[in-house]
């Protein structure tokens, strides 16, 4: 066990997977220097510049190179510095990587990991703070992972690298410097298995990424008010562990879904749609969504603070489900 940040857990795991498998290599902008946050720090020194490749600002092509290398049997980990710039790589990711296996009738495989990070809260304004994971969940052939803790970051990254499919691994910049106890050897965490972060019988909160900690804080506060919240972290959106959520709802009969992306068209809507189909009778109240409002991300600190969904909205949403009177 040691105290590690989320960022350091990623960094350590990158080194581990590179050590374990010579097919793994890293490419992206400024990765030799570690990138703006330091996720790839030290890798060039440890593994050499052939396996840790700085690239020009050519998001589309570097993603495509990773795809081609993956098809040729390597295991590239390509970094898109901010998820906002995945807009420049989507042709490659969506039209090439996601479909190659299917279109080729199973001949091609694209075992690549695309690491990127999203999220607001750093006063980075509208083009450096977005959350686009929902787009990726809408693309058959991609898997989508969103670790919410350092240990999960380590365990999920191993599974992402081992996966024979293109996996988009979405970090959150607001989590990077959060520190926690992490085992010295983290086991791989299979994709598609949710974690129950806190058990509870009154309301279920499904939260992703940065919102998991907010959900736990909300649960803590609600516990003081006599309400036991169950907090579920799906960890991967594709595949999504509907079973874990539906069976929780069968106990609590109330569901709040939370993510940082704007609500409209967000993955929360998909969770609502799946759960209401799977557990209609169990629901004693409409499913509440806690998300960012439908606006671009403002720069000004108080506006950005107001923009960010968090504990208070979760508490309110939980109470809304509890206060709901059918036919009332």
């Amino acid at each position, binding site marked *: 066990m040691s105290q590690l940040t989320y960022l350091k857990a990623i960094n350590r795991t990158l080194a581990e997977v590179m050590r374990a498998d010579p097919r793994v290599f890293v490419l992206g902008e400024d990765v030799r220097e570690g990138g703006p946050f330091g996720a790839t720090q030290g890798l060039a020194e440890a593994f050499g510049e052939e*396996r840790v490749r700085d690239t*020009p600002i050519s998001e*589309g092509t570097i993603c495509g190179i990773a795809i*081609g290398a993956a*098809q040729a049997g390597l295991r590239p980990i390509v970094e898109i510095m901010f998820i906002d710039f995945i807009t420049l790589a989507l042709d490659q990711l969506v039209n090439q990587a996601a479909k190659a296996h*299917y279109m080729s*009738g*199973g*001949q091609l495989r694209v075992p690549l990991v695309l690491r990127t990070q999203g999220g607001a809260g750093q006063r980075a304004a509208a083009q450096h703070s977005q959350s686009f994971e929902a787009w990726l969940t809408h693309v058959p052939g991609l898997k989508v992972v969103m670790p919410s803790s350092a240990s999960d970051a380590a365990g999920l990254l191993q599974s992402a690298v081992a996966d024979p499919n293109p996996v988009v691994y979405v970090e959150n910049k607001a989590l990077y410097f959060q520190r926690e106890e992490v085992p010295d050897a983290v086991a791989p965490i299979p994709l598609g298995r949710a974690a129950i972060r806190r058990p509870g019988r009154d309301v279920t909160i499904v939260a992703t990424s940065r919102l998991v900690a907010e959900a736990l804080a909300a649960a803590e506060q609600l516990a003081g008010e006599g309400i036991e919240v169950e907090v579920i972290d799906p960890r991967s959106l594709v595949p999504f562990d509907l079973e874990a959520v539906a069976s929780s709802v069968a106990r609590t009969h109330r569901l709040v879904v939370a993510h940082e992306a704007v609500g409209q068209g967000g993955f929360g809507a998909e969770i609502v749609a799946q759960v209401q189909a799977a557990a209609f009778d169990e629901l004693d109240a409409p499913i509440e969504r806690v998300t960012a409002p439908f606006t671009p991300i403002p720069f000004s600190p108080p506006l950005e603070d107001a923009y960010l969904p968090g504990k208070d909205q979760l508490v309110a949403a939980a109470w809304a489900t509890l206060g709901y009177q059918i036919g009332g």
Partner: protein
Amino acid sequence: MTTDAASSIIDAPVAFSLLRTMWRIRAFEERVSELVATGEVPGLVHLSIGQEGVAAAVCGQLRHDDAVYTGHRGHGHALAMGAPLDRAMAELMGRADGLCHGKGGSMHLVDVAHGLLGATGVVGGNIPLALGAALAVRLRGGDQVAVVFFGDGAVQAGHFNESINLATLWELPAILVCENNGFAEFTPRSAHTKVERVSDVVAPYDLASETVDGNDVFAVYAAFGRFLARARQGRGPMLLECLTYRLRGHYEGDPARYRQALEVAEWQARDPILRLERRGLEQGLFGQAEVAAAEREAREAVEAAVQFARQSPFPARDQLFVHTYAEQE
């Protein structure tokens, strides 16, 4: 290099093999055109009739452990790499025995066993993939090369320049083959760019590039051969621009009102198969009987392929759900 110099390195067996490949492509695509008209080959179909020389000359020198990427006009490249006619035809008809079990169709022929790693319908989107294949060679060691075919239209897409820059920066063993047929869909190159030659576009990058008469199969063969020898030594990238012309519309069904009868007639006279036949006969590389046999065998093989494809069943409905995700091996 002049054509004469080129032809000196092409002996009779090579010349005849090029002729056979070109006839296979021509016969295949002429038959496909009929099958599109009758509805047996559905979808968006882009023929390379008139451009066969490039496919034959380039792919004829590659190995099955090389990596070739093509695009929407890729039948010729697939066949020239050695994709079986019957499974290619079955793919175009959407049958279970197609190269991709009917999932891909005309724009997405893949035949990994023969080195055809992919075909994308997104113009320019295949170039980065080829660089990735070349990078894999570099990282793993080996003398394989990556080759990507694309049209003149792709050169104005952002991926093209990004790729040229990266390929030269990393000195990747990749050969980029541009089939410059003067048009992107219905629009002539002059409405897409002021730069006439694709080889001029890449001049700043100081990579080896050459523009050849793409309808002169010997010229393409010689130029590509020189590039290939260097790429096998791990050098690259290189760009080969082949000036050519598609004798059909952009897609089957295109009335092609945008071009001049005169232009078409001129290019018909430069048909790469006719030229090869004329030259081969003149130089005694093959005889009239062989020429006739090349065509006849091709047409017979294509006919057999059509029969094979027709007899192949359509994929079972549950195949719809197969291969969305790869399983752990």
